[in-house]
């Protein structure tokens, strides 16, 4: 029986009833990665180590963990000891980390097997995976179309059924938007829920790791393992981690879901709107109640984000100077010239653009007008959420205003056009709130995602609401036709 498109829960059953061994499972997953090489999901494969680890699992016959022997892919932004980690940038194209990120280490310690590192927008800056130094990733649903970004390789690898799940990171929608465009489930947890240690930083007050998988149930399995306090990350939350898997089969009768008044959905594509209305009805049928809520400042999320994220990025990316790691330019005049040439040769255009914006926003004379102002508006946005959660349990929006688009069709003339793709996802990063995207049908044969935003630390509620939806529908079971690859 093929392992393609199987969930973690399915594969666990196959491993436990011995219909497949860990070695066979990993071999097949690696073969699928090769078969669909053209998708360009992976930057680096981890074949030798994966096979060894699977063999060891078969010999030891220990299956104490749900994840034992399960193949996973890691976004190439998580440091992995001894395994090249590039952030899809030329500047890190030869970087071999001396340590493994906490989130990945926890997954590996639980027995899962990292088969490879996935392609992404360079330094996670993008919404289409088109800024990668290693080339575009195809959307498994349609060749020549973007998978979304920045965790585009992870989303495509899961959607193509190569791995049942993958890790991603989400700074402004980078898990949820590619999950939506590829027809899978993606969760951005509460800021601080998962350690950021060993994640190559883009915008430290917004970045958060999370799972991309075929089902909400699988996201719960990964979240259980990835979460928890880490002394190595000063922003890691020291709070109780519930058993997310245990919590997912609760009735949602009486669940109060807020619809954000300021998001005028009638401006959207009529079919995106129609899918949203259908899902709203489906939730009503399951017992949820809808209430309109007002978040007066939410429309300012995009400009707020595009001030804060570049500012933090310009500071974080100053570490790439050609001295301690990463690309170093040849024949330089002096130290300053070495910095300038190494960085200019190593970074792509979008990364440079964001560093420049951030440098400008933080420079003398502009700091108050741009950076501080944005952080003040950020508080207003967070206050709006706090008020909304007085009367509702969760908020519901489309994940993205559009379906996946053709390579090169957006943002080339005007970068802001692509920034507006993040309209529905960005605000939860600014406020640090958890949010999930689940597939809920298609528009013109391309998947669309439904987003639920939860209150602080209420991933349990989101995963439950998503699981109940998936138990009563089959959108998450739809598979792309991979005949073109």
């Amino acid at each position, binding site marked *: 029986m093929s392992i393609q498109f199987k969930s973690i829960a399915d594969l666990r059953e196959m491993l436990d009833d011995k219909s497949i061994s860990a070695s066979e499972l990993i071999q097949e997953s690696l073969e699928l990665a090769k078969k669909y090489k053209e998708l360009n999901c992976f930057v680096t494969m981890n074949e030798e180590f994966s096979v060894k680890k699977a063999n060891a699992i078969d010999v030891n016959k220990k299956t104490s963990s749900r994840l034992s022997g399960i193949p996973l892919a890691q976004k190439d932004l998580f440091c992995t000891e001894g395994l090249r980690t590039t952030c899809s940038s030329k500047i890190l194209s030869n970087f071999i980390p001396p340590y493994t990120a906490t989130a990945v280490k926890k997954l590996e310690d639980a027995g899962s097997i990292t088969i490879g590192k996935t392609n992404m927008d360079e330094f996670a800056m993008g919404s289409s995976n088109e800024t990668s130094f290693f080339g575009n990733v195809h959307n498994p649903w349609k060749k020549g179309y973007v998978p979304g970004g920045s965790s585009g390789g992870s989303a495509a690898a899961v959607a193509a059924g190569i791995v049942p799940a993958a890790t991603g990171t989400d700074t402004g929608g980078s898990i949820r938007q590619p999950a939506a465009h590829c027809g899978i489930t993606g969760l951005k947890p509460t800021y*601080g829920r998962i350690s950021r240690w060993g994640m190559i930083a883009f915008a430290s007050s917004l970045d958060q790791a999370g799972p991309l998988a075929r089902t909400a149930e699988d996201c719960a399995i990964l979240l259980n393992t990835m979460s928890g306090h880490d002394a190595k990350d000063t922003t890691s939350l020291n709070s109780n981690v519930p058993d997310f898997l245990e919590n997912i089969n609760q009735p949602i009768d009486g669940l109060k879901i807020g619809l954000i008044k300021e998001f005028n959905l009638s401006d959207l594509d009529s079919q995106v709107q129609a899918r949203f209305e259908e899902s709203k009805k489906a939730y009503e049928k399951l017992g949820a109640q809808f209430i309109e809520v007002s978040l007066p400042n939410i429309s300012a999320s995009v400009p707020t984000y595009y001030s804060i994220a570049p500012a933090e990025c310009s500071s974080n990316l100053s570490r790439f100077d050609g001295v301690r790691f990463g690309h170093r330019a040849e024949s330089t005049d002096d130290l300053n010239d*070495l910095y*300038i*040439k190494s960085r200019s040769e190593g970074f792509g255009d979008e990364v440079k*653009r964001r560093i420049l914006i951030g440098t400008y926003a933080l420079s003398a004379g502009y700091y108050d*007008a741009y950076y501080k102002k944005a952080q003040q508006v950020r508080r207003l946005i967070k206050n709006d959420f706090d008020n909304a959660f007085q009367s509702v349990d969760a908020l519901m929006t489309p994940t993205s205003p559009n379906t996946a688009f053709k390579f090169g069709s957006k943002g080339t003339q005007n970068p802001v056009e692509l920034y507006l793709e993040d309209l529905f996802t960005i605000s939860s990063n600014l406020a640090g709130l958890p949010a999930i995207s689940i597939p809920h049908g298609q528009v013109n044969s391309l998947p669309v995602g439904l987003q639920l935003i939860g209150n602080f630390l209420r991933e349990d509620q989101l995963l439950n609401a998503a699981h109940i939806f998936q138990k009563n529908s089959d959108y998450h079971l739809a598979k792309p036709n991979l005949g073109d690859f």
Partner: protein
Amino acid sequence: MDQETVRTICYLARLEIDENKSEKIQKDLETIIDLIGSLQTIDTSDVEPLYSPLEMTALMHEDIEKSDNKKEKFLENAAASNEDYFLVPRVVE
């Protein structure tokens, strides 16, 4: 934003922009600055900035000595190093 400002920011960020791209970069930056400039219309008097969603101070931990020396591994990633140091072009004559 004029070309001079773009040059100054580039220098502050230690970045060089290709001559043939500088006009496009200038235009892109202007568009983005316009976007973030739209925040000026929002009244934020008496609003404290929110620098992190957690608003907590860093947790303290006990100062326990531990040995985890990976010097060689760290030096391996540098383009130029000797046994103990990262090497850079001469700074002092």
